[in-house]
């Protein structure tokens, strides 16, 4: 198996997934655990993932109920060493067998640190995994509507309760659904381009998802319409970028994104509190373009980029990181509590 990069770099390694070729945008993630959650995160659609932690596969793969979506979303996996044996009470199969069954190629024996440094210096780039010496043409997945690829096709209802939350699925992780579905709440999960403005609801949630947010015109338009009401809105990751775009701001592509479980985000409204967050995004909000009714909520303590926004007067807020964790730290799970509290308040005031 060979990993071929857009800058003509060719790295030879050992295949441990499906014996097939694939292309995608090559990105790296520095998390030390959570490959199952990461691989099934729909935000990775179209990407070849490099894991910087050198030993992967140690605890196998559990039942699908622990996945973040129905299956693997990455196009390919790159690791330093694949652990042929695994040990965990929850494991049902090995990582290799799962990758093979899912038709996802994977390569081991790669100097992932050197590769990561290259991506850091040159920015994320296109690449491909080539099996059996096949030549491959590198395709840019960002030209595709990745959100449309991963969003559900039909709306779905979770839970039953008087409070109704619309969750726009742009590639929503399962743990978000788990975090929102609480007693007394009905979650209506809708496709990315679903016009939810006609629905009755008490809260609106905008999910994470893959790729360039500007591809989601339909969603942005719907959010603009939602802004006409005072109903609470929470955005996560791509949802944050969509909210910003709907508010009139612009987004840009980060050189190599934030993909890790250790990103420090400062609550700038408080100033002294910083949270360790799980992240997976390649785009960010352009600070200068943020309309004045909006304020920055969180800031990345490493590079100063915007990690959360809040409207000055309306109950609309969004975070660029993943409060639902999975994988990663659970420190910001309170974001859901705050959102649901504002939904409850809204419901009470409009009863």
């Amino acid at each position, binding site marked *: 198996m060979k990993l071929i990069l857009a800058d003509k770099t060719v790295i030879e390694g050992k295949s441990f997934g499906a014996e097939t070729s694939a292309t995608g945008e090559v990105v*790296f993630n*520095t*998390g*030390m*655990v*959570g490959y*199952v*959650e990461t691989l099934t995160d729909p935000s990775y659609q179209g990407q070849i993932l490099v894991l*910087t*932690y*050198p*030993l992967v596969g*140690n*605890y196998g793969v*559990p039942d699908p109920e*622990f996945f973040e979506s129905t299956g693997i979303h990455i196009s390919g996996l790159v690791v*330093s*060493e694949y*652990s*042929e*044996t*695994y*040990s*965990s*009470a*929850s494991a049902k199969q090995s990582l290799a067998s799962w990758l093979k069954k899912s038709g996802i190629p994977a390569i081991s024996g790669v*100097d*992932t*640190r*050197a590769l*990561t*440094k290259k991506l*850091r210096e040159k920015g994320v780039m296109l690449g491909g995994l080539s099996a059996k010496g096949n030549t491959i043409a590198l395709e840019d997945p960002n030209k595709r509507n990745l959100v449309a690829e991963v969003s559900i096709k039909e709306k779905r209802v979770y839970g039953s309760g008087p409070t109704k939350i619309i969750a726009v699925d742009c590639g929503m992780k399962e743990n978000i659904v788990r975090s929102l579905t609480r007693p007394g709440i009905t979650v209506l999960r809708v496709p990315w381009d679903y016009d939810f403005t006609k629905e009755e609801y008490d809260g609106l949630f905008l999910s994470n998802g893959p790729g360039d947010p500007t591809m989601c015109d339909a969603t942005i338009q719907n959010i603009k319409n939602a802004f006409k009401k005072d109903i609470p809105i929470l955005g996560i990751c791509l949802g944050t970028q969509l909210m910003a775009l709907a508010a009139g701001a612009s987004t840009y592509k980060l050189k190599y994104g934030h993909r*890790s*479980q*250790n*990103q*420090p985000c*400062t609550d700038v409204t408080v100033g*002294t*509190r*910083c949270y*360790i967050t799980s992240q997976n995004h390649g785009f960010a909000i352009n600070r200068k373009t943020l309309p004045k009714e909006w304020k920055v909520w969180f800031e990345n*303590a*490493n590079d100063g980029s915007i990690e959360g926004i809040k409207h000055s007067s309306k109950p609309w807020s969004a975070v660029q990181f993943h409060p639902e*964790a*999975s*994988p*990663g*730290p*659970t*420190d910001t799970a309170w974001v859901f509590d705050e959102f649901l509290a504002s939904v409850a308040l809204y419901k009470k005031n409009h009863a």
Partner: protein
Amino acid sequence: MPKKPKKVLILGSGGLRIGQAGEFDYSGSQAIKALKEEGIRTVLMNPNIATVQTDKGLADTVYFLPLTEHFAKEVIEKERPDAILLGFGGQTALNLGLALDKSGVLKKYGVEVLGTPVSVIRDTEDRELFIKRLSEIGVVTARSFAAENIKDAVKAAAKLKYPVMIRMGFALGGEGSGLVRSESELRTRLAEAFHRSPQVLIEEYLAGWKEVEYEVVRDAYDNCIVVCNMENFDPMGVHTGESMVVAPSQTLTNEEYHRLREVAIKTIRHLGVVGECNIQYALHPTTGEYRVIEVNARLSRSSALASKATGYPLAFIAAKLALGQSLLTIKNAVTQKTIACFEPALDYLVLKMPRWDLNKFDSAVTSIGTEMKSVGEVMAIGRSFEEVLQKAIRMLMIGADGFTANKGEAFHIEKYLAEIKDPTTRRVFAVAEALHRGVSVEEIHKLSGITTWFLDKMKNIIELEKRLKKETLTVELLRQVKQAGFSDKQIGTITDKTEVAVRALRGKKNVTPVVKQIDTLAGEFPAKTNYLYVTYHGTEHDVTPGKKGIAVLGSGPYSIGSSVEFDWSSVQVLKTLQAEGKETVMINYNPETVSTDYDMSDRLYFEELSLERVLDIVQFEKIKGVVISTGGQVSNNLALPLHKNGVKILGTTPENIDRAEDRHTFSKLLDKLNIDQPGWAELTTRKAAGEAAMRLGYPVLVRPSYVLSGSAMAIASDEKSLMRFLERAVDVSSEHPIVISKFIENAREIEIDGVASKGKLEIYAITEHVENAGTHSGDATVVLPPQRTYLETIRRAKRIAKKVVKELKITGPFNIQFLAKENKLQVIETNVRASRSFPFVSKVTGYNFIELATKAMLGKDISGHYQTLELDYVAVKSPQFSYSRIKGADPLGYVEMASTGEVAAFGDSYPEALLKSMMSAGFRLPKKNILISLGGEENKVKLLPAIEKLKVLGFNFFATEHTAEFLKTHGIASELVHKIKSGKKENVGTLLDSGKLELIINLANRGLVREGNGGNNPSDGFIIRRKAVDLNIPLITNRQLAEAFAMALSEVGKKGLESKAWDAYKKDA
């Protein structure tokens, strides 16, 4: 932010001992640096003179005083600090801080405790409070009952059902803890435990659960991060200090990892820790249930490890947080770009392995369990488990080349299944043996509870070894085995090649390692880090070679005989080189050291001190010169091999170093120079050994070159004892010759530590041992300047030193040991390297010997007038023992070194310095009751004047049968104590248990011959000594020390002991 204190008192941890070692030199020095950066004056109290933290230029004021409430109060009274740090000196500092708080001293003098408040420390230390506090937030602890008496403890155990765990409150390193299977066993353990701690815990036994640790940091603004998590190789039941530990965890799923992380943060927030703390868990391997085992609200061994494992400067940050700073305002010192509020991402793994030295003790138990017995540790960095495992095993310096392919019987375990089931210090080799013999991973897992993932990796190593044996050595296979951590030597052993040939082959086939950085962020941000390791899992170096620097080889693991003093020396070399404008490259792998701190060298290779690895580094970095003379024997041993490989060694030439090391050449050299030495012979058969001993005359000192079990050195008093030792302990053959030398009785020992330049002696210090020859120099009480040595003897010693220095053309440090008896001066040993006592002589004389040695090695002129003999004060260095940890060992001074550390104190007089020094090592002055038990006529007669002195002081004596009789005939009253076997009252056993005794003076008849102790039929003497240790009663076993002690006590008398700072003892003061 709260008001910054102006002056802060920092409590150190004292002498190195099992459970509390060099890691606190690291944490204390970092704390001092952090405070200095803030412009705060620092006062340090620590009698450990071999530490970097007690160096000039670090703390503003240093007190070499016992870490007791009495002395701490005096220091506070004198210094009037406005704040105190308790979290940087281990359990010792923490307990002292709690005592100072309880007695109201801190309040009286308005001393604020920085960082974690005292009430929180109490919550973590008092088991009952701890469980209560955690249950408030629904955090689960092991089911546990605190008991303050035997009755309650027995009741609690019955409730929990046997087996149960017993633990002591306020203890360090799991001291006094263990598995108890029955009520009678419990009662025995309790009797001991209540002598050491007011509180004993009876806990549910969590055998087989995974043991996991988290290092948590919290600031005063509630920002809370987890710097590192670690997974123990051995499941619960083996103390984390006794287990191999990997970081990060390897077999925890995301859910487990982050659930425990969440619990950690929740717990630490609820408790209110400010600074650094460690939380330990048991995690059930199948149900995922957890129990919090303990929280250490201070820097610990684990936090030192976590700091080195991640590159996150935990101690430094903890000190800043204690001042009330926020994690958001402190920079990540490694990247210089990001902030301290983040969690390190590792793109490598580390493995810590404990180093034991139990074979130095004849009857010591080698099983491992819930009590810590290891004396040091190593940490290996790499990118696969196989790689770090094999590296770590080599790093132990126990003669093993890796997990497998070891020469020598010591690593082939006969009863491997038994040692897997009931772990011993050799468990890892027992696993190797089992895998070799085809035992399945599943079977080993069942016996040991070790997670199969680790065992599978170990099996990979064995499988690769098999392939190496069978297959042709292709480039692919060669790379694969190197990635699995095989050394060239191992590959050579397996494929029947020399190490040199394998290295050459690798060079030809281009199978070479790469240098990688530890940057705390897995490459996400560019980092300015100097922290490096070497791996075969990679194709690209992270760094370009440096500016042709000078490499300093460190000392490897702390062990008995090689401890913090060699790290001190290495650090002095680094500092001097930097001051001289040289680029420095440090090579060492001991996570408990200061030399491996991120701010000590231009480049730090956390790597093996093997010929192979040092050559890799030297060749990559194009090193100009290597300093091998300050890391003890570990680095010294590399002198000749490196030299033969064309590496430039700074200082004395390796050929000359070797001339001093090789017994034959050195002996001839002494003869040539007309220097006297004890007679000796090297022999290859037992018969010849017997003849030689007869010729030399008993007693003789026996030193085998190969040891099967037990201690490596012995004194034989007659042919019978010689033969017994040779049969039991050693292999005598042409391959493994033994050396027998004349043992000179009642001789005194003096030492010269010095520095020479091009064969000229430039500076030297003469020290004198309190104990006569027969006590290892590392276990001796050492005095500077000498008190009993004639000026003429000193002159002669100096003349001898000059001759040796000239002959060996020494440039750099050296040490010569002499025997002095009746105007005769004999040389017993010369080391052409820095010795253990260099920090002591440097700090006492006020001249930094290593700085001078380094300058000499650089070719600088260091000549000058150094006044090292005429001092207006006296300093005494005392050994720190860890016998309480080494169950079954006889705490009797011997030719084999047994101490794990040392302390020192200054005084205006010898008696004052001696008492303070002894107290610094944990000795408590008796108030009333002393047990005297003297074996042999000579001991009785010679100690009589000392006993008379004690009598004048009004002590009450207890004495064993013969001693009592002897004392009576000399008009000294004592209460007779019967032999244990007599069953009479009062017998030795009942008296010891009564808790009455405050001092025991026990002199063995033939103290030098260690036989008949322990075993099935222990002598009363052994029981007295052992019980003294187990019951924490001060003990003196050496006659000269007993004499000195009695003299000191009577001379100091009511004057008391002064609490003066180090500065007050400066020569021109």
